[in-house]
């Protein structure tokens, strides 16, 4: 899957962004299939906005975003659902779990939203790698941020995808857990021949990136 950004710029931030240079805003960018891309974005440069634009959660921008040479503005609701079910997976900065479902139910819901990519026991395997097996039957709302972040990571990896979008996915994790999570993510991406776009505040060595961009 390829994604092309053609001079996109969020309307509310237009004036501010036009005054400075960026590798993404108001220029042409192409993300190819299988690329590991790091977008370094200091605070206030529209990191989360970019993630939401790519995932079509926001529509208030100028320019065009093309997925496989088709403008995402043209995707119908059902097509968008299909895209999110088996082409693009996401880890939100604000995690977005259902607080009233258990950790396992949160992950399971994503698994069975369409024909499952993995069997049920993969949830346990991934959870064990990330050290959250003990909270699987607990309500997600009662888990710590660190645990919730790892639940969100497993949830994103349980589905098929060609591109994984991650918005500060390790912000609540210590170095050891970050390494474990990054390793799992890399394995899962390689398995699917998928790429990812990760946004973060600082430089890091969690992955070997194909490209670094500065927002």
């Amino acid at each position, binding site marked *: 899957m390829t994604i092309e950004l053609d001079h996109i710029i969020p309307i509310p931030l237009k004036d501010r962004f036009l005054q400075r240079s960026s590798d993404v805003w108001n220029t042409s960018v192409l993300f190819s299939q299988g690329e590991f891309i790091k977008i370094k974005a200091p605070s206030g440069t529209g990191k989360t906005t970019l993630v939401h634009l790519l995932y079509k959660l926001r529509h208030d921008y100028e320019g065009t975003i093309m997925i496989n040479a088709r403008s995402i503005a043209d995707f119908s*609701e059902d097509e968008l*659902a299909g895209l*999110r079910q088996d082409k693009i997976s996401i880890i939100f900065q604000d995690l*977005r779990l259902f607080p009233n*479902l258990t950790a396992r139910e949160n992950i399971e819901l994503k698994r069975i*939203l369409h024909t499952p990519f993995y069997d*049920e026991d993969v949830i346990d395997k991934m959870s064990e790698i990330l050290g959250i097996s003990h909270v699987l039957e607990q309500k997600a709302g009662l888990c710590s941020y660190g645990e919730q972040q790892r639940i969100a990571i497993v949830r994103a990896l349980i589905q098929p995808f060609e591109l994984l979008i991650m918005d500060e996915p390790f912000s609540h994790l210590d170095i050891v857990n970050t390494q474990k999570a990054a390793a799992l993510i890399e394995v899962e991406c390689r398995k699917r021949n998928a790429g990812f776009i990760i946004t973060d505040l600082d430089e890091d060595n969690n992955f070997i990136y194909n490209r670094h961009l500065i927002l």
Partner: protein
Amino acid sequence: MKGLHYLLKKLIRSGAGRKRFFMAVIGLSVAMLLILTAVQIQADYNDLLHSKSNQDSVANFLVLNKTLSDQNLGATALTDNEINDLKQQVFVESTGSLTPSRFKASIQSSSDRFPFFTDIAFESVPNDFIDVTSKDWKWDENAAFVPIIAPNMFLDFYNFQFSFSQNLPQLTQQVVKMIVFKVNVYGPNGLITFNGRVVGFSDRISSLLVPQEFMNWGNAHFGINQDTKPSRIIIRTKDPGNPQLVQYLKRKGLSTDADKTRFSRYRQIVDIVVRISWGTGVIMLLFALLVFTLFIQLTIASCKEEIILLITLGASPRQLRHFLMKQFFPVHILIISISLLVISGLQFFIHRKLVSQGIFVNSLPSVNTIAAAVFVLISIWLVTNFSIRNYISIPLRKN
């Protein structure tokens, strides 16, 4: 692990307004019972009126004449306009004029052993309106005898009253049909005598009937005046109990056998009951639908966040609509099935009850009743589907 349906159910709770939901369920059940009852009563009534097994052939023919009053003495003839107007009415299937004889006539016995003599008048009516079939029912100038159809009640009157008072023997229909008597017709050129014989007895028309040919011939040759306007007319109608018919007769100053139109009053009562049942049922149905719609709206509004997140995670609106439909619709199938079962039970009970009284109504609910149930079910499906579509798009739009 539980399926998607279970997880969605956990997220999209319909806890809010459950009491109202149950009230609406009860309301809808009553509404369905009322509507289906109304349709079923109507069907049963039509059954009673029109089905072969209940048909009363006498009741379908009415002999009409002007109600005699001081004002119209001697002027009771029906004009062409009046007859045409009658023909135009929806409840009249066909009409036939009764032709009265305009000549003097008498009958007397041919044998001295059983003497009788009486002055008499005849009437004739088109053959379609006669309830007696006899191969002898024809006449021409060379015929051996004049066939006559007598009203059944004449014979009853003779057998059960006259014979006792005069010390005469009682006679069966068969015996009467064998008696040949003399028919005397008095014309301007004197008396002509024919042989006459009764060929049948009628329940329908209360006069002595002769074939139309004989009547035409007699009136032409012996008629005292040439006035050809009929005073009485016979109509064929599907339903003598039709209130429209009764009102029409009243308005036009016509009268008929009141006993035959007695159903009209029952019919009006049935109509009123059916209409009240209908009206109440439909109003209750509308209110129940309104409450259901509000319930759907409330459920969706109270789960707005969950629905937005589900869509964000990749649930398709179609999946959610399908889920919500499964949540909200089956209860309606249940309600309508139970209502139909109750109606079927009642209908079977009524059938059993009435059969013992010789009245036949179907033991199963009518096709119309089932069609009405299906129609309401389809309407509810459409309303539910529309509400879900409408309300689920609200959180998505805001998203």
